[in-house]
């Protein structure tokens, strides 16, 4: 299915990009900033591709005995919030890509601290997000690479 294939490639690229973005020494500031900005449309596309999941799970949230769903939903929501906080604070403290972006209005060293905390939270949330979706990820990879039990399904 095209949506699944696109999701798999997009998510793999997003994962790699986030790992690279976490290491500023590796990229230097200009690449770090531009790569972070390039991540915005990719993240929007990721969320749009997962919209059916978001819509159905939001409706099912109040149903009884949905513990796993609630935990998964909460992790995804926290992941979304930490991503917004990381990108927003990154834009505010930008030095190269858009140095004048709202920094006159909001310029504050607190944003640097927010960027650090939010990216740490992001790392944790990505790990938990992957942990909860691990079976799906493995199944899709096996299907794509035609390995193991999911290959025939």
């Amino acid at each position: 299915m095209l949506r699944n294939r696109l999701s798999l490639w997009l998510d793999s690229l997003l994962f790699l990009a986030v790992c690279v973005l976490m290491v500023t020494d590796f990229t230097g500031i200009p690449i770090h900033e531009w790569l972070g900005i390039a991540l915005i449309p990719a993240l929007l596309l990721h969320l749009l591709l997962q919209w059916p999941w978001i819509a159905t799970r939001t409706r099912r949230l109040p149903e009884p005995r949905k513990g796993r769903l609630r935990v998964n939903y909460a992790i995804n929501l926290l992941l979304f919030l930490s991503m917004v906080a990381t990108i927003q604070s990154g834009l505010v403290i930008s030095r190269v890509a858009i140095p004048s972006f709202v920094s006159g209005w909001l310029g504050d060293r607190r944003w640097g601290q927010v960027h650090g905390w939010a990216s740490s939270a992001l790392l944790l949330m990505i790990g938990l997000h992957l942990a909860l979706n691990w079976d799906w990820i493995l199944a899709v990879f096996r299907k794509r690479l035609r390995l193991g039990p999911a290959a025939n399904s």
Partner: protein
Amino acid sequence: MRSSGRWLKQLAILIAGIAAAGLVFTLLVRVLPAPHRGSRERAPGERPRERREFRGPQLARGGPAVLKQIVIIGVVVLLGRKVLRIRL
């Protein structure tokens, strides 16, 4: 609703959500007290510390550092799977 209209509606909801979250963060950051920047008197003859400058990509140091990030996420995934499987 046509497919393009549905996508536009979803995109609009997403952007509204992002804007709302951004606004809340902005308000929070403005309300929170500024971090205390610790400064101490320099000893006689002590040179001021140089500001750390990023000199651009450093592949030799960066490669292992990216791997370290992947390992950290891997550890969180493993621990997360264990904890969530026990809890759920």
